[in-house]
Every structure is written in structure tokens, then in C-alpha cells.
């Protein structure tokens, strides 16, 4: 076939397309090395954060908590209570005059019907010699 300029251009463009398709192009973000944050600026805060998390994790183990729990058991919590309102003490305005008392001793009649002490009933003394009936519960 006769070759003209258009044939040459068309073939050259076909070759170009084939070569372009063979290219492996890296994504753009990998290229921007000059814009990347310095690695130490990421590494240091990351290490601090990890250390913090690790510290919390080791502190929260049960073995470490045991003495803490024991301490907590002995703690007495003082609950604040409201102070009682002061009771007003009645104060006499005027001192009452002392009442005359009789010098005669008063004689009280003894009621014969009612005895002064009640007789204990039931078994007076147990075998062990203890008066259980007289024991008073506190």
C-alpha cells in the first residue's frame, strides 16, 4: 500500500497508545513527598498516646487492684448530716417566789392491801442456782 503522511501519523499514534498503556503510573499522593508531615512529628505523639494506653491497661489488672480494693473496704464514708436546729430554752423573765413549805413531816398511810414487793412466783432457783426469772434483758 502507498504510504502517505496520514498513514505515518496514524501508525505513530497507535504505537504511542500501546506504549502509554504499558506504563505503570504511581498515584499522586505518593509523589508529594515534599508536602508530607515529618515522620517524627507523627511518631512522637503516637508513642506518647500508646504509652498512655499501655499504662492504663497495666494499672487496671486485677492483681494491682486487690490492695486498692482492700483499702477501699476500710474507708468510712462520713455522710454530712444537717445540724439540728437549736431548741429555744425558755427563760423565765421573773424569778418565781419560793413557796412556803410546811415543816410538819407528812405521814403517808401504808396501804395494807397492796404489798410493797411482789412475790416471785415459779421456781425460785434453778439447779445451777441462778434466778433466770429475775434476769433482765438489756
Amino acid at each position, binding site marked *: *500500500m502507498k504510504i502517505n503522511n496520514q*498513514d505515518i501519523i496514524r*501508525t*505513530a499514534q497507535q*504505537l504511542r497508545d500501546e506504549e*502509554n498503556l504499558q*506504563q505503570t503510573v504511581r498515584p499522586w499522593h505518593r509523589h508529594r513527598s*515534599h508536602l508530607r508531615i515529618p515522620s517524627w512529628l507523627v511518631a512522637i505523639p503516637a508513642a506518647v498516646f500508646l504509652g498512655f494506653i499501655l499504662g492504663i491497661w497495666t494499672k487496671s489488672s486485677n492483681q494491682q487492684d486487690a490492695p486498692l480494693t482492700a483499702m477501699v473496704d476500710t474507708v468510712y464514708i462520713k455522710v454530712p448530716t444537717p445540724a439540728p436546729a437549736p431548741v429555744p430554752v425558755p427563760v423565765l423573765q421573773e424569778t418565781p417566789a419560793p413557796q412556803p413549805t410546811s415543816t410538819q413531816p407528812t405521814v403517808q398511810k401504808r396501804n395494807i392491801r397492796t404489798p410493797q414487793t411482789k412475790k416471785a412466783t415459779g421456781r425460785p432457783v434453778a439447779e445451777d442456782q441462778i434466778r433466770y426469772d429475775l434476769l433482765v434483758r438489756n
Partner: protein
Amino acid sequence: MLFPLRLSAQTDEQLMKRAAQGNDRAFEELYNRHARRLQGFFVRRLGNDSDLAADFMHDTFLRLYAARETYHEGRNFRAWLYTIAYNLWKNHHRNRLAIVSDCSAIDALPVDDNIEVELDESLLRDALRFILKTLPEPYAMLFSLHYEEELSVPQIAQITDVPEGTVKSRLHKTMNIIKQELRKYENK
């Protein structure tokens, strides 16, 4: 001014304007559009060294990113991209070997204007692949920019800092050199 939400629907120039205003996603869209083609351009112009081509493409976009704030409206994005790429390639050649700075001697070489070539298509592909690799500079670069990267003559003149008339005459001569080389394959 309100921009359409979809970046893929925008022109290169609209994206570059947004990138100049600090929109990194717009710049990434430009990268996704042009990186493969630019890397292919460097592969062809740097002697099929894919790693070097990837590095050059990388450097081109880094320079573009660094200079994104200097972009002004109306400037053709592809012409700007290929200006950076061309300058990188030129510096590379300047460092490696003495680039032909004075092309007048090559331009003066006589090339037949009416060359007729008859080849079948598969042979044309193989022959052209070899000829384009051995084409002397600056013809190889001009052929690449005009026919492979599809940049216009005024854009190439701006990129290479050569008058438009010179670009045209060199492109014409490039085609004749290629035809002349293709004739060698006619009887094979």
C-alpha cells in the same frame, strides 16, 4: 463564581484555576488525566527507560504543583505542562551530552520533497517504531510534540522557544526524513 461539583466534567484550565486556589483534588484530577500520557512521552524521549521516565513525570508535576499559584486564566494547561517537561528533558540532555544547539546545519541538509513509499501495514509499524527511535534531535522532539502529543504549532513554538515558521518547516522536513527512511524497507 459557582463551579460544577463534578471535577471530571471540568476542563484542564478550570481545574488548574481551582488548584491555584488551593484545591488539591482538582490538581489530583489533572494528574490522573495527564500522568500516563506524559510518562509515555518521557519513555519515548529518554530511550525507553521507564523508571527514569516515571521520575521525570513525577518532577514535572511537582514543579507544576509548586508553581500552581502563578497560573493565570487563559493560559493553556497542556502547553504549560509540556513546557516544564521539555525544559526538564533539555536539562537532562545538556548534562548528559552536548545537545545540538545550532540546528542550522541539519536544517540545511537536502531532503527530497516527493517521496513515495509502498509498504504493507505490519512492516510500516515495525519500521516506524525503529525510525522514530533513531530520529535525530530536534526532529524527534518536534514529531513527538506535534503528532504524538497533539500540540499545535504555536504551542510548540512557545514550548521550544523557536519561531513558528521554523517549527513548521522542521515538521515538514521530519516527515520527509521518515519517508526517506521508510523507503529502505520497501524491498525487504
